Structures are given as C-alpha cells and as structure tokens.
C-alpha cells in the first residue's frame, strides 16, 4: 500500500510540474514572419546555441512547417559562412 501511495504522489507532482510549464509557441507563427531569410544571422543565431547545432523543435516549440524552413535557412547560412557548422 505504502509504495503505491508514494507512486501516486510522485505522479501528481509530475503532472503539476508539467501543467505549470509555460506553453511553448512557434516564434515564426506568432510574429507572422513570412519568410525565414538565411541572411538574417541574428535571427538564426537564436536557434543555433553554443555548439552551432540546430535547436530541436521539441525544445524551441517551433511548428513543423517553420522548423523545416528554419533548417533550410540555417543550412544555407552555413554554406556561405554566415553561421558555423560547429563551434567549440
């Protein structure tokens, strides 16, 4: 019995944590950015933290459509040496 109770409280805590997390939103939908430009280094840098990797959708909250465009833009920017492929 005891362990089950503990389990339940754990679950509750977990749900609480989850419920109060700030809702993620897609930056591009929100700001109605019509086209993600590969030349816009400032914008893209926000999605390529330290190592220069592309920030995953699961964390940034970007919607699928915009994540695809973002990926394309970042890869173009890398090609023309505006963004690093890796940074360490």
């Amino acid at each position, binding site marked *: 019995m005891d362990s089950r109770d503990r389990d339940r409280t754990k679950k509750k805590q977990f749900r609480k944590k989850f419920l109060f997390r700030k809702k993620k939103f897609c930056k591009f939908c929100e700001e109605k950015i019509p086209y993600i430009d590969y030349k816009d*280094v400032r914008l893209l840098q926000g999605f390529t933290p330290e190592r220069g990797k592309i920030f995953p959708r699961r964390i940034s909250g970007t919607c699928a459509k915009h994540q695809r465009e973002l990926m394309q833009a970042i890869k*173009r920017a890398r090609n023309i040496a505006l963004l690093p492929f890796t940074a360490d």
Partner: protein
Amino acid sequence: MVKYESIFITDPAATDDEVAGFLKGFEDSISAGSGKVLKVERWGKRRLAYRVGRHEDGNYTLLKLECPPAAARELERRYRMNDRIIKYLTVRLDKDLPEVPLAQAAPAAETPAESSEKE
C-alpha cells in the same frame, strides 16, 4: 525568367576596384544572357563563421537577379573560374517573397565583433 539571389565572397585582399570589375563582368554576362540584375548589395568585409582555405574574413557581395537558368549557370561558372572568389551561393527565390528587414542593422560593422566574441 527565374528570380535568383546570389552571394559571393571575395578574398579580402582584393581591392574594391577589382571587385567592381568582377561585378561589371557578371552584370554584362547576365544581360548577355537576356537577364537583368535587380539589386547589388555590397556588405563589405566581415568575419567568416569558419575558415575557408586560409581565409578568416571575406568580402561579401549580394546580387539579386532575374534571368533564365542558363545565365545563372554561366554566372556560377564565372565564379568558379575567378580565383579571387572563395565561396558563392546561388538560391532560387520561389514565389514573390516579401523583403524581410534583417534583424541586424549594419552587417558589415556589427557582426565581425560579435562573431569574434563567440569564439
């Protein structure tokens, strides 16, 4: 006629006049291929995000053009033949995309400092 956007990076050791000369040649080749150059933007010298050959910085020039695909191919061929050009990228602009103001104000002046900070 297709719209393209083409960027090339020249060796920073190349003088402005030299680059202007290349530009003139490119523009001529495009108009010879019955296309036209819509816009030329010279960003000036900025730090490259990674080393290209032995270069740490490069001189960026952006071209916006409207031309048949053959003329764009010719332009890229010219880029490749020019040994002052260290990198280039040509992108087709799909629909009529609106101009997006860049988040950066002065690309030439600001970004070099920023990228060196990151390193």
